[in-house]
């Protein structure tokens, strides 16, 4: 009845490993849509974070709490409002953006309750996805978007360029971008340039409310994507 898995199972989720790498040890972290708690468990035990989670699915919550994690059953779009401002250093929205109805409101809440937000999502601009629609005339399905159009929890699709535009409109600063290719490797930003939006299957953004000294020093190498046109 105790833990079924004792070691964190994040090795096979490359995006989770990348997210974990962005987080300073010992910080306060909220994982929104934390699933079965794998990332949170890793962060708590290997980065000594003060970790909390919100998860919609009962099964995910039960598994997380059984691991000893502070996870509540709740809906990001309803429950974030109850957290005080600046309660966290990092809030994580990992592969959840695509199923959120009020994207703007949720992003605003994330960066109200936390200094930084880490947002990862599958890229609708990925070339195979575009190919599916352009050549095959089919709604895209891939490893990252595995659901058929009529039976998908994913209601919001965006490309990397879309997201960068939205973040800019909302006045958020992108401190870091990690683009991940089909083989799960982080793409070196300066070698792919404007092709990132074609080649990245998913991406992870580190957002903050205002320019931090970190992002200023990282400067051009991590600059937001230019528009394709």
């Amino acid at each position, binding site marked *: *009845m*105790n*833990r*079924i898995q*004792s*070691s964190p199972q994040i090795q096979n989720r490359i995006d989770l490993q990348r997210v974990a790498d962005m987080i300073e040890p010992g910080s*306060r972290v909220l994982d929104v849509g934390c699933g079965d708690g794998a990332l949170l468990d890793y962060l708590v*035990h290997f980065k000594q974070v*003060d970790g*909390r989670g919100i998860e919609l699915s*009962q099964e995910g*919550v*039960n598994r*997380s*709490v*059984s*691991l*000893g*994690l*502070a*996870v*509540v*059953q*709740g809906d990001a779009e309803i*429950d974030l409002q*109850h*957290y*005080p401002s600046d*309660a*966290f250093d990092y809030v994580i929205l990992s592969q959840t953006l695509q199923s959120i109805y009020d994207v703007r409101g949720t992003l605003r809440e994330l960066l109200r309750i936390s200094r930084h937000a880490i947002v990862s999502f599958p890229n609708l601009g990925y070339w195979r996805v575009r190919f599916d629609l352009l050549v095959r005339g089919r709604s895209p399905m891939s490893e990252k978007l595995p659901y058929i159009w009529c039976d998908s929890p994913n209601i919001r699709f965006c490309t990397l360029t879309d997201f960068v535009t939205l973040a800019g409109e909302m006045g958020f600063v992108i401190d870091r971008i990690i683009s991940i290719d089909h083989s799960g490797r982080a793409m070196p930003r300066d070698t792919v340039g404007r092709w990132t939006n074609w080649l990245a299957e998913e991406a992870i953004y580190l957002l903050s409310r205002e320019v931090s000294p970190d992002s200023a020093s990282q400067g051009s190498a991590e600059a937001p994507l230019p528009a394709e046109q």
Partner: protein
Amino acid sequence: MTVVSKSGATTTGSIAVEPVVTGLPGHTIVLGDTVPLALVSGQRLGPFTVAYQTYGSLNANRSNAILVCHALSGDQFAIDPHPITGKPGWWETVIGSGLPIDIDRYFVICINVLGGCMGTAGPKDINPQTGKRFGLDFPIITITDMVAAQKLVIDHLGIDKLFCVTGGSMGAMQVLEWASRYPQRVFCAIPIAGAARHSAQNIAFHEVGRQAIMADPNWHGGNYYDHAEQPHRGLAVARMAAHITYLSDSALHQKFGRELQDRTDVSYGFDADFQIESYLRHQGSTFVERFDANSYLYMTRAMDYFDLAAEHEAILANAFEDSQVRFCLISFTSDWLFPTTESRQIVHALNAVAASVSFVEIETDAGHDAFLLDEPEFFGILSGFLAGAAELRGLDGDASGRTGRETS
């Protein structure tokens, strides 16, 4: 704390209680003999007796104690056969060797609440000033008072910080009170199927129960103790009504449906034709064997008066400000007496002060009583949360190594 001599003036004006129930298994302690307990009602109590049970053993640095708070109809005999009825303890599925609250690992304390009738001071006890039973002259007890008395027991046991306080229903109210009033004394708190205040509907059900007791001619205004007949009928009806609220429509339907009791056809009379009637009558008649009718009045009243936010400028979050307590709230889908919305309200208040909180709603059709029944998912949550907390608390044992927790 100022030390006051036994003959000191502080005990004047305090209500002394002489116990009538003695010789029960377990421990008793006399409290409030030097400094009386200041009750919320303004009265002062002491000396008075508190009865409690313990299971397992306290470790060397006294850090492995779990206080289990019992519900309205429970008592301190959580896992041993009841000394009056001989029935199994009310939480024997949860507390025990290898169970979620593992007595090989934790030291478990269960205290009969103030106002109770299993050894702790209550209305059936004797007022030494008159030499008679208190009856309704016993001071009104609140959840705050129950917890204040429990804290004196914990002080007496030399436990600086409880590893965990847990309990369901009225027990959950005590857990919340503990975490709110004595946050430095609690490492983690697990309120189960509880609420931060008693709802109007719940007060209404309690009032039905109380009126049933008071309407019994054998109640005699609460002074029934010297009479041959006790207000058993009233108390049984109160228990029957309350018992319905602990179950759910679907649980009743599945268990009893419209099945008839020992007959093939209805009697066209008022016998217990249906199994559910017979079941409720049985519940009522067994309850009166072990429970005092006046205690029932006092304990239901204590629950009615519970409103944690009201004590904190009507803002529940203020009850938990800067709390370092790790919370795990558990509710049950079919519980309509303490529905999930009540637990969720507490979760929101805890979120508002950025407290560490886990919250799980368990899918079950067993109703409010689910916390007393065999619910594997519930047990998994309990042991998982406790193991995680034990690791943080640095408790020795198999939780100290991550790999050691793979098998249970």
